[in-house]
């Protein structure tokens, strides 16, 4: 059996997969919101607080975390900084929700025995009001992005159902990675939200390719055109997954790591949302149109 006939017979069954994912992620996101009042855990850049990075080998992260929690009587989060590629130990990052810097520096020195100076110590401090403004601003940016992108799609295709299908696919590409981020408890930073904006851009590429081939091309039948576009689209997606996936493992920057992680998850989701969901909607749409044409023609 070739792909075309497989698709023709099974597109309705395939459609179930994205629907389950959509329902799953909506449940996760809504219950997370009900529990925490948030869309995701925010890091220091979006919530306010201090993030200090100590650039020194051989620091015991767990010991430092316990020590600081004890002394400061607040939640402290310490993680190791290093890249998997060279398996190196570069240093640690300390995150605290409160704005305490001078004391923090002394305590870290006390616990680790490392003398901190401008060379081995970086610190980021954000007031909670600013973090909140950043967060609100970025959420607005995501919504505006989505709306602007939607306008572009509607203008380009000028038909309601195919355009909506593209937007639905982009929505799944955002909401599913979001639910994964929530479940893993990753703290999202400002660049992470920027990554979601990029996801919007990446996600629609394959959908535009698919929709164009299905609606505007005449060669082959409907299923051949979909399979043809999938060959191109999957090459695109896997090329990007390969590039960003490897970059994820190589980079030592938490900012870049988080961006790449979000985009890679979204690209995997995009395979399902484009070829299981968007194509199914297009098949249904074309069949209906054909029926109408027969009826009226």
């Amino acid at each position, binding site marked *: 059996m070739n792909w075309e006939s497989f698709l023709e017979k099974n597109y309705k069954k395939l459609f179930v997969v994205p629907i389950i994912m959509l329902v799953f992620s909506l449940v996760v996101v809504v219950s997370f919101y009900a529990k925490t009042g948030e869309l995701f855990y925010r890091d220091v850049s979006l919530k306010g607080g201090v993030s200090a*990075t100590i*650039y020194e080998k051989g620091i015991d992260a767990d010991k430092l975390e316990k020590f600081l929690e004890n002394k400061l009587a607040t939640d402290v989060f310490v993680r190791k900084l290093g890249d998997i590629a060279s398996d190196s130990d*570069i240093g640690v990052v300390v995150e605290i929700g409160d704005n305490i810097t001078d004391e923090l520096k002394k305590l870290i020195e006390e616990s680790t025995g490392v003398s901190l100076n*401008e*060379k*081995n110590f*970086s*610190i*980021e*401090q*954000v*007031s909670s*009001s*600013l973090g909140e*403004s*950043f967060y*609100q*601003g*970025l959420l*607005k*940016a995501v919504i505006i*992005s989505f709306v*602007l*992108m939607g306008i*572009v*799609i509607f203008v*380009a295709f000028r038909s309601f159902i195919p355009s909506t299908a593209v937007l639905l696919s982009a929505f799944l590409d955002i909401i599913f990675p979001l639910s994964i981020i929530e479940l893993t408890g990753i703290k999202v930073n*400002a*660049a992470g939200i*920027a990554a979601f*904006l*990029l996801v*919007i*851009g*990446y996600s629609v*590429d394959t959908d*535009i*390719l698919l929709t*164009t081939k299905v609606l*505007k091309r005449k*060669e082959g039948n409907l299923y051949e055109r979909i399979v043809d576009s999938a*060959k*191109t689209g999957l*090459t*695109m997606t*896997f*090329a*990007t997954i*390969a*590039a*960003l*996936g*490897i*970059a994820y493992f*190589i*980079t*030592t*920057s938490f*900012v*870049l790591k988080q961006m790449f992680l979000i985009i890679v998850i979204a690209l995997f989701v995009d395979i399902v949302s484009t070829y299981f969901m968007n194509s199914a909607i297009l098949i249904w749409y074309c069949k209906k149109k054909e029926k109408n044409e027969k009826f009226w023609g």
Partner: protein
Amino acid sequence: MKSFGVRINLLIIMLVLSLIAIAPRLNVDGVEIKSLDAVSKSQGLNVGDVIKSINDARVDNPEKFIESLKEASSVKPVRINLVTDKNNASYLAQDDLLFELENLTIKNSKIENIKDGEILKEINGVKINYIEDWEKIRYDLLPSKVVRIKTDKKEYVFQVNKELEINVKEVSRSNIRKGLDLEGGTRILLKPIGEIKASNQDIKNLIDVISDRLDIYGLADKRIRAADVENDKLILIEIAGVSKEEVEDFIATQGKFEAKIGNETVFTGGNDVPFVCKDDGTCSGVRRCDLASEGQYGCRFEFSIKLSTDAAKRHAEITKKLDVVGGSGLGSDGYLSKPLELYLDGELIDSLQISSSLKGSETTDILISGSGFGENQDAALNDALLNMEKLQTVLITGSLPFQLEIVKIDSISPIFGEEFLKNAILAGAVAVVAVLIVVFIRYRNLKVIFPMMITLLSEIFIILGFAGLFRWNLDLAAIAGIIASVGTGVDDQIVIADEILRGQGQIFSWKEKLKRAFFIILVAYAATFAAMLPLIWAVAGLLRGFAIATLVGVTIGVFITRPAFGAMLEKLMNK
């Protein structure tokens, strides 16, 4: 010669222009000054100057510089043998003789077994009978070295009696500027707080004043701009190569200066003070250091200023009403009943007696003084210099009309920056290879891989060209943006490659095929453009580098490099 066709020629032109914009400099020598100590600053060295050699030894990198500077300016302590009328002593001295002399009488002695009040008789074997004897040798007693520093502007030759502290960085080798998170430094986001909300004009004025202050302070390597976050108007300052502690206090100080007599204000900084003496040893400097109390040294600084005529009139009117006290007729004219008190941000920093001769006079020349403290003399001296500089700065620029709250402060270590940059370049290179491997697996044709590689690298190069042209600061976010736009670039090239390689049908001409590919590419471009647009303004523009790099990347991709890719592929496939 056969032409490459418009599209490929356009790409070549863009690559050449980018090369010009980046302007790589291969044979640069010397190091650029990041910050200076007071000694070298007073000699005329400036932040941004490029030091070529020290004592004729070439310095090509910061490590070499540190080594050469240490060698050239470190002085070894010398032994001083001293005889007084009561005692004698032998001790090591480096930049301080450990006593002062007045009428051949020892003052402020820090030498064991030599007390104040003893008379100096002999030093290092030279008999001291008259003041002239002392004056002849006093400057030759302490060790000193002559340092010759050659910069791109001129050669400086001066004596030092302690190690110079000059911080340098590598001279930039191209027009591409590294952003703060790659170079190291401090970023501060300030929120003005006043009785009324700051207007755009207020923000502009604040930026001018802060910028002036930073200049005066010697922090020239800075970027400062307005930043809107939601409904707040903020100011963003980025200073490369400076730590958080160095700028934190200084920047957020409103710097409200007031000189008062009693409850009446005589003058404040800015317009009241048309001239402030600064960096001129004849009218500004630290004049005296003493042991203030056990383990606590104090140093006094002085500098002269000129008052405006308005302020001088105020001075006359206020002093007219004061009484003269303490005049004894024995050479001393006495003082006015109330002192001139200097306040900085509401805190009394100094109180000056006013000579009775100034009563009711419209004097324009005023000597300002203050002090600094520390646990040793060096610390006290530095503290005094710092306080003096702060006060001078405030007097020159006037006070800020708003209080400033630091809402965000990031301090990034320069080591991070270097590591991140190397790492990001590695990540980018490996990402490009990964893409090419995936594409090769799909097409198994080197004729596709080659033009694709050329296109990807050209795209990165042209984005960097833009960065050089507009002097963007390439930060981590911008690098992420470049990787992202290369990602969409790959997508588009695959679409083009697929349209062209679909050899079987051959219903369409090359031109037709490319046209079809470009509908998809243009719509995808418009969608990405629309999606990234809001990011230019979000988060106080901190992610602007990311947004702009992506937007520029996809734009040149769609209009220049990807059409060229189509043309290259077409030519290769047609052979």
